[in-house]
């Protein structure tokens, strides 16, 4: 079976500090990978998605970047965090296009920028 791991679960970082969140998927190959952000009381907003190693598409211009160094590894980064970067960050994977578009989520990282 497939599993998705995301860490850390909670993170408190000062403004201006760097960020690195990691996500790995097990039990599947060539997944599509996604980073979503969820603000308090709101739905999920897609930040980045990747259909293969080194292939990153950004949905929203922002202070964040993403990388996919390996097939099942997805990393969310920032060089200098802003207060507005606080939120609940979720990594997800899906099998691909067409009839297999449902996404499966990790347990999330709650980031507080202080």
């Amino acid at each position, binding site marked *: 079976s497939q599993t998705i791991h995301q860490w850390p679960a909670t993170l408190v970082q000062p403004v201006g500090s760097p960020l690195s969140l990691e996500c790995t998927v097990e039990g599947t190959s060539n997944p599509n990978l996604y980073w979503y952000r969820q603000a308090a009381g709101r*739905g999920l907003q897609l930040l980045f998605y990747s259909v293969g190693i080194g292939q990153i598409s950004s949905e929203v211009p922002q202070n964040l970047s993403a990388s996919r160094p390996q097939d099942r590894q997805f990393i969310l980064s920032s060089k200098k965090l802003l207060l507005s970067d606080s939120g609940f960050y979720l990594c997800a994977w899906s099998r691909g296009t067409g009839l297999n578009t449902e*996404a499966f989520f990790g347990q999330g990282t709650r980031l507080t920028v202080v």
Partner: protein
Amino acid sequence: QKEVEQDPGPLSVPEGAIVSLNCTYSNSAFQYFMWYRQYSRKGPELLMYTYSSGNKEDGRFTAQVDKSSKYISLFIRDSQPSDSATYLCAMSGFDSWGKLQFGAGTQVVVTP
């Protein structure tokens, strides 16, 4: 106007009642529809997935899609306190690379 509209609630129901949730959407390109359940401080868990108009049933859950009205619903029968969570609708179009558009989520509280 948001592409996906969902009443945030909260929706409070007594144990054993039917929970009725719905979303409306404006983009006729959406072909695939999902419902997720999210407990507090956890990642969303996929409950139902459908890609055709009509009803799909799985245990106590029934998902309903009406593409002509751009309206989807989720019904939970015999609700339990453990069903208390936020329910998110999500949808995507064909060849969208699995990118999902989410509703804001409806908070459901089932009281014993």
